[in-house]
């Protein structure tokens, strides 16, 4: 889809709605496009870490997408990657200081490796660097929001489940669980969880498609 300078507002709104639903659900950024799996595997172990990573991803993705949409096509292709990566690293420097000083030292220490990795996350390379360049700023921003939300949903669900299974807690609060499996904190559990979640999403989509086909046949 090429950038259209002037188009009717309603068409832009439809495009926004489609892009949002596409990136958030139908072609969910993690479960269908296999983008952004790295942080979920090793760092998506407690819900708090999941939420922090989502916020950092959003903090990096939104400005990067907006910037690439506004100025990306004016820059030569090869220069784009260093610009948004270094820019993202600068934003994350601020986020790191904020996390360490104002929120929690231990959280920062445990996320020391994965926080800066958000700068080079495939989310940024493929969405900001790929999608946003060829779309109007509003659509690019919508896509960035949908990607962050899609990623956030998946990482929070996986982290919450793993936290409950491996430590018996949720957001640090102990729950009354009889079975605690410390091995759920290992990466293989994340891979398997993601696989089953992706299958669940595909199943839901096939059910919806079947219902739509049935109603089309009834009406048509």
């Amino acid at each position, binding site marked *: 889809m090429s950038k259209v300078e002037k188009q009717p507002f309603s068409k832009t709104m439809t495009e926004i709605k489609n892009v949002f639903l596409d990136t958030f659900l139908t072609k969910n950024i993690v*479960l*269908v496009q*296999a*983008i*952004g*799996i*790295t*942080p*979920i*595997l*090793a760092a998506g172990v407690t819900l708090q870490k999941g939420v922090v990573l989502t916020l950092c991803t959003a903090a990096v993705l939104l400005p990067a997408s907006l910037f690439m949409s506004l100025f990306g096509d004016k820059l030569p*292709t*090869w*220069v*784009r*990657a*260093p610009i948004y*990566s*270094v820019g*993202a*690293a*600068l934003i*994350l*420097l601020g986020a*790191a*200081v904020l996390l*360490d000083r104002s929120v929690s030292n231990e959280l920062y220490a445990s996320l*020391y*490796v994965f*926080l*800066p*990795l958000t*700068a*080079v*996350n*495939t989310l940024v*390379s493929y969405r900001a*660097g790929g999608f946003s360049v060829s779309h109007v700023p509003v659509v690019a921003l919508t896509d960035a929001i949908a990607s962050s939300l899609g990623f956030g949903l998946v990482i929070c669900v996986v982290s919450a489940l793993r936290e409950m299974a491996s430590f018996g807690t949720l957001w640090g609060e102990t729950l009354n669980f009889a079975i605690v499996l410390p*091995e759920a*904190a*290992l*990466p*293989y*559990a*994340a*891979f*398997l969880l*993601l*696989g*089953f979640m*992706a*299958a*669940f999403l*595909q*199943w839901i989509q*096939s059910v919806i498609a079947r219902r739509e086909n049935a109603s089309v046949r009834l009406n048509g």
Partner: protein
Amino acid sequence: MTDFIKFILAAAVLQNVVLMTGFGSSVMIRISKKRTNILPFSALLCIFATLTVLVCYPLDLLIGTSVISKYIRPLMIVTVTALLYIASVVLLRKRFPEVFSRISRLLPIAAFNNLVIGIALIINHQFSVSLPGAIGLSLGACAGFLLLSWLTTEGMERLDNPDVPKSFRGLPSVLIYLGILSLALMGFSGSVSMI
């Protein structure tokens, strides 16, 4: 020298970096969809990872371990990688333009990658390691990436069959395949000891 060998073996096979820490897993899945991409991409990854480690190692020692240097370290690593990437683009465009036109799409992903930055981050932060060990770690990680990409491509081919349930066709079955491979590696000692 023993450090070098120890880390190469560890990062490539015994505790494959991609499966244990997740560095580069998204990229690996996307690259493995086309068999011909695997070798050139892994070679590029290896070059960037090793060069980044080589440059960042002395810089690490230079900035020390104060609180401020802890914050600046990631930015320093990303900047080093960016400079290396720009240098490689300039060099390739001048000297080897056909090579550049063929790999220009893979180049930014190979440079700005969780594996490259992640390896540089964990060295001297998680465990202090000598320079040969650090180089061994990055080489081993890339060798492990290559091995795993190959196994993933083979797996994807076998999973492309009509008996797989409809909900599991495509990415879900590949993720489960990687999960079982990761489970297999859990037999070796150490949980996620690199993080």
